[in-house]
């Protein structure tokens, strides 16, 4: 299997993108995944349909009540047009750069070059929705209306329009056709609270001490995984991790899994940080231990 060995190790597909501010700091933006984007779109469509249905009912009732049904028909025609085309454009042109669906899922549209999101860009990315969503739908509708009369033609049309619909899956930046043309992309933009300081929380009370051998087991990657476990606070995960560390380090079980892990985290953090500050950064457990 020579060919397999020759292949360069493939980096895991990450959605983090380098994004340097004018101040020269890399913000490392996280792109929204295709699934989240699709859910946000579904949410928007749902809200759109519901508001359209309610508006139709309201206009219908008013039209029955009042004699001048014409006004309401005009309102409906223009309103449906504005809803269909304006919903995405107007919301994304606002300061938040997101439709209600995107906002619910913590997404935001931004210009790829880091500049302002211009009206032209927003219109471009949403006008292209016509070929991404409407075109496949209209071919599907044709299929339903005509039966299987033009089976092959419809199949071909669906494949062709599928290229546009599934475009985000074919490029690593998850760009829609509209994003490509408008120079935008969609990033995660959630508001998070600052988590508690795990080391400081243990500093105020008696701590366990660990031998160097026990602390040399792990590197930064494992430290941060442990941090995630501690912050998530799931009992079974904590018990599993504590048992693993005890087994590897040859330590006895003292019955307090969380306390043990928190102390181990603090001790490991202190040790790795000291090593890092003198230039011996140990990325993970496979990395060499700094010489003493």
């Amino acid at each position: 299997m020579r060919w397999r060995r020759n292949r360069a190790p493939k980096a895991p597909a990450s959605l983090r993108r380098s994004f340097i501010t004018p101040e020269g700091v890399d913000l490392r933006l996280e792109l929204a995944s295709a699934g989240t984007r699709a859910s946000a779109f579904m949410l928007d469509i749902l809200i759109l349909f519901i508001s359209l249905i309610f508006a139709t009912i309201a206009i219908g009732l008013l039209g029955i009540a009042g004699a001048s049904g014409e006004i309401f028909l005009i309102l409906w025609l223009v309103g449906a047009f504005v809803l269909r085309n304006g919903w995405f454009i107007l919301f994304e042109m606002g300061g938040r750069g997101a439709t209600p669906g995107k906002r619910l899922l913590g997404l935001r549209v931004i210009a790829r070059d880091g500049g302002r999101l211009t009206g032209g860009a927003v219109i471009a990315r949403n006008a292209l929705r016509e070929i991404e969503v409407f075109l496949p739908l209209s071919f599907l509708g044709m299929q339903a209306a005509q039966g299987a009369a033009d089976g092959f033609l419809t199949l071909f049309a669906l494949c062709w329009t599928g290229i546009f619909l599934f475009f985000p899956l074919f490029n690593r930046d998850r760009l829609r056709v509209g994003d490509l043309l408008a120079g935008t992309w969609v990033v995660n933009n959630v508001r998070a609270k600052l988590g508690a300081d795990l080391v400081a929380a243990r500093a105020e009370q008696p701590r366990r001490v660990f031998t160097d051998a026990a602390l040399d087991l792990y590197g930064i990657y494992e430290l941060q995984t442990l941090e995630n476990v501690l912050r998530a606070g799931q009992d079974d995960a904590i018990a599993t991790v504590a048992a693993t560390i005890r087994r590897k380090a040859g330590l006895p079980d003292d019955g307090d899994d969380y306390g043990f892990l928190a102390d181990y985290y603090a001790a490991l953090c202190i040790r790795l940080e000291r090593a890092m500050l003198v230039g011996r950064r140990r990325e993970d457990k496979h990395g060499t231990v700094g010489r003493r």
Partner: protein
Amino acid sequence: MSALIDGRAAAPLVNASRFRAAHEGEWDRLDQLVTRMEKRSVRALSEDDILALPLLYRSALSSLSVARETSLDRALVIYLEQLCTRAYFQLYGVPDTATRQLGRFFARDWPLSIQLLWRETLICLILTVAGVVAGWWLVATDPSWYYSIIPDAMSGGRDPSASAETLRATIYGPQEDGGLATFAAYLFTHNSQVAIFAFSLGFAFTVPTVLLLVYNGLTLGAMLCLFATKGLGLNFLGWLTIHGSTEMFAIILAGAAGMKIGTAVAFPGREARTQAAVIAGRSAAIAMAGVVLMLLVAGLLEGIGRQTVQSDAMRYGIGLAALAGWLTYYYLPRHREDRDALAA
């Protein structure tokens, strides 16, 4: 197990603790300001807050850099990344106010974006005219072509077997069932949707857009020929001109905008392909917003104007005046101090 040590009253153990203690207040304040801006707008901030904002933002950015290099506290780094990102978008990425955007659109962006499309507009005009000529020629040589060009639903009784009187009635007759404004609204929304569709089809290397334009010309040519053979050519042209000058112009521009993005993707020129697509896409989208407004005018002229104005001279007058108005607005030279702002 191992002995316990008492860490009370000792100095903080890791950098992150010291760092958090020193700067957490600033981060909190920045977080509050950004949240207020996100919820409402920058006007929700007091003068002091606005003065403090850039300083807080820069200090958060430098905190982020320091935290990445000296701390292993992942929660801290992630928090600062998110805070700085949110602040960045509030400081650099916020669009102008709606009124200023609208003003710039009408004063500069709209006509400029149309001007940038002049080459494509010319090509689309030629394609449409070619379609008209072909449609005319086909129907003139063999009237049965008419039925293949124009679908039954669209002809509405206007076909070669109809008498001159019937055809005259379709041009001058009163609107069947009232509802002029409804008709106008229907025409506007329908035509705009088709125009947006034609624009976005341009992305598929402009082939569908070209087909649409030629077909549009074909139907026009076929109808013109039909009415001309019954001696109603000029009357039909008047019936068409009152709104058609605006509507056909808008359709040609929509096709041109689609052609622009299609050709930019296919032939990017000196730019990188994606960059060329972005430049073309943004300016063509502004042109499309203008096209929708044009179709609004066309819808009003067609739905209301055409049915109430019955004299040929008036119809020609209104149609040609509208055309002259559009041409002046778009192509009259104007000083373009920052033309590149369109693409920016």
